[in-house]
């Protein structure tokens, strides 16, 4: 099988998985809105939780995988690791946007404010910005090998930064207690809600896998195109 055929095969698998999961996402909405009881204290606003928490999970999973693939790239020097790391970062940024927009929509009625400098909100915001920088930098380096090394360095630096940012916000808050004491953690959920949530977590995780697979296949094809263009220029 040629590289092109392999890339197309990967892309097809990614498209099928993403397609199935997008249908499953509709089922998540239907189940969350119609077949899951309304939460007693938060009312209908709590429904956004079934999208928000899984999106946050997928985003953080994406960034963690980018960091791990960065370490693997510097170790094994396999170009595919770099392509997969960048695919994961891109999908992570997309999920972060879902997380950072659904969060405030829920926060306004429940916390009474769109935004609060809570530990989780702040750390996810800075990690999101860090990965936006990661993608911008990738666009600014022309040579694929240099781009891969720089991205890997930044990916590892970013992975290490996460606990530091978390500690920073934690120290900041313990010294200046926030008037809004309600934490984003949920108590143990009743059965129906838990099933909806776990269903949604599963869908978002597989949606992440589907998107990354597609994006990775696209990166392989982009690589191939650049290679062919270079060969044509030589001959």
């Amino acid at each position: 099988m040629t590289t092109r055929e392999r890339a197309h095969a990967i892309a097809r698998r990614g498209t099928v998985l993403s397609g199935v999961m997008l249908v499953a996402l509709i089922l998540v909405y239907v189940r969350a809105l119609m077949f899951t009881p309304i939460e007693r204290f938060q009312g209908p606003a709590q429904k956004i939780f079934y999208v928000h928490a899984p999106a946050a999970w997928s985003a953080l999973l994406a960034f963690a995988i980018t960091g791990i693939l960065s370490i693997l790239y510097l170790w094994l020097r396999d170009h595919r690791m770099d392509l997969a790391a960048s695919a994961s970062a891109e999908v992570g940024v997309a999920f972060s946007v879902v997380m950072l927009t659904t969060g405030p929509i829920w926060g306004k009625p429940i916390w009474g404010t769109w935004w609060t400098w809570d530990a989780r909100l702040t750390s996810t915001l800075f990690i999101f910005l860090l990965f936006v920088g990661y993608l911008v930098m990738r666009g600014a380096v022309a040579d694929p090998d240099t781009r891969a090394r720089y991205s890997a360095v930044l990916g590892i630096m970013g992975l290490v930064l996460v606990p530091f940012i978390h500690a920073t916000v934690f120290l900041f808050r313990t010294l200046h207690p926030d008037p809004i004491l309600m934490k984003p953690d949920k108590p143990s959920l009743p059965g129906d809600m838990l099933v909806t949530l776990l269903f949604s977590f599963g869908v978002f995780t597989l949606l992440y896998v589907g998107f990354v697979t597609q994006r990775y296949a696209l990166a392989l094809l982009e690589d191939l195109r650049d290679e062919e263009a270079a060969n044509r220029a030589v001959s």
Partner: protein
Amino acid sequence: MREALKAAGAIALKDLAVEWRTKTALVSSLAFAVLVLAILFFARDPTAIGVVDVAPGALWVTFTFAAMIGLNRAFLMERENRALDGILLAPVPSSAVFLGKVAANLVFVTTVEAVSLPLFVLFYDVPLWPRLPALALVIAMATFAFVVVGTLLSSMVVQTRFAELMLPLLLLPFLVPPVVGAVQITARLLAGRPLSEGEGWLRLLLAFDIVYFGLATLLFDDTIDK
């Protein structure tokens, strides 16, 4: 080990000699620092917010912004005529090059800070002198943190398009822990409270310094084209 340190020293001295002859980066960083200090003084409602309340933040915003202007310089000047290739041809480990660059940047940023600190006292009229030893410790720890990360990032950034734009974008997320910590301790010191109140922050700064110094020294090898 001694050879490597000697090489690092030579690189640092070379960088500082070049800077001393032109003084372009030094003068622009200093002028920039004064401008930021002056602008931040007016960026508040004087009837509602006392100058002591904004002083710690103003000091650290000035330090980081002024440092950022100077940090790109270390590798930008090696880009001309591919001078870095010449340095890398020398039989020294690449970590020695990194240490040399970090040392030169530390001297550069410390000079900018040493000049802008008295100006800060002058402009903001804060009781800083009795707390100087404690403050110097905090400044040293936070400066080390952002010089280490900044030097590593600038070695990559100068090879990209829009180099000047890229450094702040990549560096600022990394400055959150050291700068927030430094501002918190500075605020307590200026309010006349003991250094021990900022113990948690000092630990965070120390951990950041150690972890990122080790990581950056390891990773530097992958940021240079061989």
